[in-house]
């Protein structure tokens, strides 16, 4: 396993974890753009653009793109989040140059007007699909309440209204400003021929011009709010609570993740034994999310509406019991084993490594081996965990609950 990296003259960074004995390779363009880089009026443009990227280029129609992706036998897809838009494909090593050519070409999409209108309908369907699904808008609402006027408040998909209002011209401008080579990273993992990859990338991206692509960073306020929403077709009650966590560059994230696992993993945690194993809740989990300038430490739970009040009290009691029920060494050992074993098991596929390598590079400009990440978890001490646990008592939170009536 070897790490290689290079930066081209146009600013494009290329990073790869080369594993010559892998059966396949995964390639991806990681674009440092997402919903937080949009204006409120353009909410949803990053995600809509991700769809449009597959709709063809000056030399390929949408059909050509789809057919070639399948011709290559690739498993390919894309996603958009608050901070990233990622296009990736897994192929056999012999298809590297064709795959890279295709992937690079679609980074310069044609954004044709008629494709734009058809795809808009698909996005409207996607929004409707999520609106109909649990937790029925609670995720978006909780982000809006927690972040207020901070850019992370914006919805990744936008709203039906903002998407309907988008036009191809403004999407072209957004693309031009955000898909500059200095804002993209070409990431590869698996059986990669790195030298060839770099040579091809130089040629394929020679005409790409660097731009100023800064991102506005700010610390969010730490608000306190309790929101109740009603969704009559629901049968269960869904609750999401955010508190402030740490940004993706902060090594304290390892402490919070181990703590979240001990208290709220979906199996074997304190919340699991108090609520899920005994059938009081369908789920009750803690999880963290990290962004460039801040992070979240969150709770999610589902149960019957009748059970909600007493379950919520149990959850709050568990989270504020740091002094009375300190973290034990056994809990720490179990959580670390679980996390580290999961890391190793998932690292066997190059497609999974792609996201770890790419994510670490985008967020921290670092290459992190599986062993290094595992060691970071192992280094977390009982004292750190106990301190973080006790602090939970005084955190300020935004809670959104959705109930049938």
């Amino acid at each position, binding site marked *: 396993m070897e790490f290689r990296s290079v930066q081209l003259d146009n600013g494009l960074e290329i990073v790869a974890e080369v594993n010559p004995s892998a059966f396949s390779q995964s390639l991806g363009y990681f674009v440092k753009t997402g919903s937080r880089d949009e204006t409120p009026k353009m909410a949803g443009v990053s995600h809509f653009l991700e769809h449009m990227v597959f709709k063809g280029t000056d030399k390929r129609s949408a059909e050509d793109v789809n057919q070639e992706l399948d011709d290559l036998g690739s498993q390919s897809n894309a996603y958009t989040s608050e901070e990233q838009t990622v296009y990736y494909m897994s192929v056999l090593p012999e298809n590297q140059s064709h795959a890279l050519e295709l992937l690079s070409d679609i980074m310069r999409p044609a954004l044709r007007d008629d494709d734009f209108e058809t795809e808009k309908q*698909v996005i409207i369907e996607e929004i409707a699909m999520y609106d109909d699904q649990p937790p029925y808008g609670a995720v978006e609402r909780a982000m809006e309440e927690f972040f207020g006027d901070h850019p992370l408040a914006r919805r990744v998909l936008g709203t039906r209204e903002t998407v309907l209002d988008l036009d191809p011209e403004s999407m072209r401008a957004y693309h031009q400003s955000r898909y500059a080579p200095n804002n993209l990273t070409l990431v590869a993992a698996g059986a990669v021929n790195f030298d060839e990859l770099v040579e091809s990338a130089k040629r394929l991206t020679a005409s790409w011009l660097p731009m100023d692509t800064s991102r506005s960073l700010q610390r969010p306020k730490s608000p306190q709010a309790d929101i109740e929403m009603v969704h009559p077709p629901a049968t269960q009650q869904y609750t999401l609570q955010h508190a402030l966590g740490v940004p993706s560059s902060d090594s304290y994230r390892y402490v919070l993740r181990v703590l979240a696992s001990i208290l709220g993993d979906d199996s074997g945690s304190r919340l699991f034994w108090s609520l899920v194993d005994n059938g009081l809740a369908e789920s009750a989990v803690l999880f963290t999310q990290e962004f460039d300038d801040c992070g979240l430490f969150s709770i999610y739970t589902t149960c019957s509406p009748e059970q909600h009040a007493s379950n919520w009290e149990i959850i709050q009691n568990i989270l504020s019991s740091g002094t009375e029920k300190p973290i034990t060494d056994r809990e720490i050992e179990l959580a670390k084993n679980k996390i580290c074993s999961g890391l190793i098991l998932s690292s066997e596929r190059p497609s999974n490594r792609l996201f770890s390598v790419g994510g670490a590079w985008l967020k921290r400009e670092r290459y992190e081996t599986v062993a290094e990440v595992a060691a970071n978890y192992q280094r977390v001490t009982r004292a750190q965990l106990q301190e973080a646990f006790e602090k939970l008592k005084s955190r300020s939170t935004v809670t959104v609950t959705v109930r049938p009536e």
Partner: protein
Amino acid sequence: MEQSIFQHTFPNGLVLLGEPMPWLESVAFTLLIRVGTSDEPSDRKGLAGLAFEMMQRGAGELDSHAIVEELDFLGVERSSSVSTFHTSTSMACMASVLEPTLKIAVSILREPHFPDSEMEEARQSSLLELASLEDDPSQKCFTELKKARFGEVYGRISLGTEEGLVAITLDDCKEYWGQHISPSGAVLSVAGNFKWDELRELVERVIGDWNGNSNPHKPNVKAYPSVVHVEHDSQQTHIALAYDAVPYQHPEYYQSRGLVGILSDGMSSRLFSEVREKRGLVYSVSASSHSLHDCGSVMCYAGTTAARAQETLDVTIATINAIRDGIDPQELSRLKSRVRTSLVMDQESSSARSSQIAYDWVYLKRVPTRSEVLSEVDKLTCNSLLEHFNRFPPRSWSMVTIGPEPLELPNGIS
């Protein structure tokens, strides 16, 4: 990479299958028992799932808590499921801890405690899981489709029914275990980093002295065409469709699976192109092959806002029927390319292989190698696919819709 698949049948009836993948650090296994929802008494729907849940709440030397703790300590990823004919446990772990992991999985089957104190909690969990299905119409349309298409016995779902779950007693669970959980007809498939001889010895030690017989009933699965609408206050209408196809063990299965591939594998597949790309009718549309014993079906899903639901249904069915107008050599070549790649990539996942070889054994009583599968796929031609389509045209349609308004199957569909 060369592929070896080993098989050994123990005197108690358990079949051990092994595919060594020494380039991995992990090992994964699937342990499958020949009992499922079709073996439940009709007034105890949910028993297969609830009894299995109770078995996992304490077994051998470990109580409920200790089982979870021990598996976490070993760093085991696990899942379990109950289907119409089978009950299975799948686990993946580092190769060094295969033995203690396998011992726990086996003790759950052989030595469950059935703690009285946990019965109500297990029941509550099951009831809650069943209730949550109501909030997931894209899932529910398939459970309703299964009920409608395969009838009272074979259309059951593992979550059971509220009446069934409420009626089940701890004695029912114990009796079910005594009658049905046995090594006869069981399959243990292992893939990943292990040595076959050592594995066989390990399994001999852990399972060799497990005896017991079960008498599974002889399945008689039939598909019943039907149209069901479930009214639901949602923006989208969820459409689940099924029609007849040949089952997994049929000599022409590759033809049938190939046709599903033309319809639904990849971004250039016909359903994705016609329903989503050209018309923007849906975010999600797909088709897949299903076998229930010797009864095969193709099942399709589309989700779309109510006003466009009838058009989505019509286009979906027209796209399926348009296969009769011919298949383009290019689309077949794309399909073959996708299969080739995915067979190679399967070598990167012990979990994917362990569940596939268990499935192969259940349906075929053998495990085809990659090169066999590849050669079968290479044999597919546009003509052979078309002939298969004409011999086995889509018929016996079932449809379940969940949403504000019912839909109508187009004329000429039966």
